[in-house]
């Protein structure tokens, strides 16, 4: 039997039994559509989370002084060692790395902040202009610290929203002067309310230029350096570069600890991917159910078409030919169902995308590939039993009934 004839024969069957064909197309289609839609929702959620992380400073790399194998919170301090300090020059030299977009050295201390008779003990952060972008902070009023050489400083500061309210009240902080220790700073900006971030409540801090903080706390040592890598892919090179540059500058001692957020993100990524796979697997079960329906329908077809099978045998069809006829039929139906399902899944995905425009719903490539393949696979698998039954039919008995 020629392949074209086989296809034509199966096509005539598919066309000849419309209701049956429609039922199978529907079952297969729903299965495939479910896999595509569900996995694109999962993939969309994954991309959404990654994007959200990205906007929070996903590419953040934190450099701490002191070497710690366990990357604990405050390595040098806990171990009681005094590692070599990280300096401004260390920080500036990191800019050599092509993987690093920007960085902000950080000095932290507690300061007695006074305005007139009011006084308040707050954390004081010494840093540079780039912190704003690295930490994705927002200004409520005014400007952030001015850019410029971090070794020199102007007597300006930025205050958290709560600090501004407590020290200046309704008057407004912008342009006013305040005192930290024995130094005076003019308030050039007020941070927007943002809450906890990287261990600080930014509503309750005062940010001053790095050099001013060094003078205030009488220290050269940086608390840490916040580094932003250029992309997710450059996080690892950035980390390697930092370690290499610091080692060079510290006479071959790798006395810094570099922490990345990538590990956290990777975990999230894995969880969401597993979730997508799991939900996709659930949808795949609906495909299997569709496969069983195909089997039932094919079994009914064999029963209905007993006399036809008997006839084909009498006309000289071999068992293999009969099996092939039923297989081709099942595959044609599965192909149709898969095409229908992919289209329906795509439409569903677009509709959900309209309802939740923030989440980038796209079916992952493996789902687009796997769903129709599974459909065809199950159809073939579940056509085995009916096709074999058809091929084994005794022609005399098959023909004896009308």
């Amino acid at each position: 039997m020629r392949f074209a004839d086989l296809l034509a024969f199966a096509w005539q069957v598919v066309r000849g039994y419309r209701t049956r064909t429609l039922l199978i197309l529907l079952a297969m289609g729903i299965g495939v559509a479910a896999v595509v839609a569900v996995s694109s929702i999962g993939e969309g959620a994954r991309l959404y989370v990654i994007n959200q992380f990205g906007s929070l400073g996903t590419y953040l790399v934190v450099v701490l002084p002191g070497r710690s194998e366990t990357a604990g919170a405050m390595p040098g301090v806990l171990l009681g060692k005094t590692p070599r300090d990280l300096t401004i020059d260390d920080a500036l030299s990191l800019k050599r790395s092509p993987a690093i977009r920007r960085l902000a050295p950080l000095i932290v201390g507690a300061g007695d902040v006074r305005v007139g008779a009011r006084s308040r003990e707050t954390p004081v952060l010494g840093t540079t202009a780039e912190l704003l972008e690295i930490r994705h902070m927002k200004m409520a009023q005014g400007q952030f610290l001015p850019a410029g050489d971090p070794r020199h400083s102007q007597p300006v500061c930025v205050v958290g929203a709560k600090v501004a309210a407590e020290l200046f009240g309704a008057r407004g902080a912008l342009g006013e002067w305040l005192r930290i220790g024995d130094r005076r700073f003019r308030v050039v900006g007020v941070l927007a309310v943002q809450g906890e971030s990287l261990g600080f409540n930014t509503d309750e801090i005062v940010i001053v230029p790095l050099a001013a903080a060094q003078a205030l706390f009488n220290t050269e040592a940086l608390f840490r350096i916040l580094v932003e890598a250029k992309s997710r892919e450059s996080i690892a090179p950035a980390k390697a570069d930092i370690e290499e540059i610091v080692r060079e500058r510290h006479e071959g001692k790798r006395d810094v600890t570099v922490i990345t957020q990538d590990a956290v993100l990777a975990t999230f990524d894995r969880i969401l991917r597993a979730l997508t796979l799991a939900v996709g697997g659930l949808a795949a079960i609906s495909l299997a159910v569709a496969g069983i329906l195909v089997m039932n329908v094919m079994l009914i077809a064999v029963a209905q078409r007993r006399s036809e099978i008997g006839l084909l045998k009498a006309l000289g069809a071999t068992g293999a030919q009969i099996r092939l006829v039923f297989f081709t039929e099942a595959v044609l139906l599965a192909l149709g169902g898969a095409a229908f399902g992919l289209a329906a899944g795509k439409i569903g995905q677009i509709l959900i995308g309209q309802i939740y425009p923030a989440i980038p719903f796209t079916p992952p490539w493996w789902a687009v590939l796997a769903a129709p393949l599974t459909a065809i696979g199950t159809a073939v698998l579940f056509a085995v039993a009916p096709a074999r039954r058809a091929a084994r039919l005794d022609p005399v008995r098959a023909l004896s009934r009308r």
Partner: protein
Amino acid sequence: MIRLSGIERVFRVGEEQVHALRGVDLAIAHREYLSIMGPSGSGKSTLLNIIGLLDRPNAGRYELDGRDVTGLTDDELARVRRERIGFVFQFFHLVPRLTAEQNIELPMVLAGIDPAERKRRMGELLAAYGLEDRARHRPDQLSGGQCQRVAIARAMSMRPEVILADEPTGNLDRHTGQEVMAVLERVHHDGGTVLVVTHDPEIGARAHRRLRMVDGAVVSDERDRT
């Protein structure tokens, strides 16, 4: 051409064994026109099925053109059927979703014959059986006689040596039945071997050789003297 010796066929019905054929010996030559008659249950259809290789005997030997076919596998039997035997059934057994033309073409499609050759043969067959204006009709749009003509054309499409007809007129009125018989007789006249199973004495009497079966055995075998 066909030589049966000691053919036995036993069916098991529940606990009982039913002897459909008991030691049938039969030789059929080329170009014979033979009818098999007998009451229902006498084994005539079983005999026809065994000759048509649709069924296997439990014992005995069947030679087709000197070749023992009792030991062939199912697929080998299918191939022999396809090449050498044409069937005509009481209920026509046309595929309802296919047109007359497609039904006639079916054995050639199964045999994998080239579409151009199929078309050529189909033209001949449609003309020979007066079906030209019915080629694209489906079986439900054809009369009984036309259906049976389509079935005969289908049986002839592979140019078999033997046509086996099981009650070919059983589902037709008298007049149409005689028409169909005339068609079958033309096949015989054109060089075919025709076997007709019937319980209609009038139809059976038309054959040149007439077998009577009772209880799975051939009880009489008459031939015209020619």
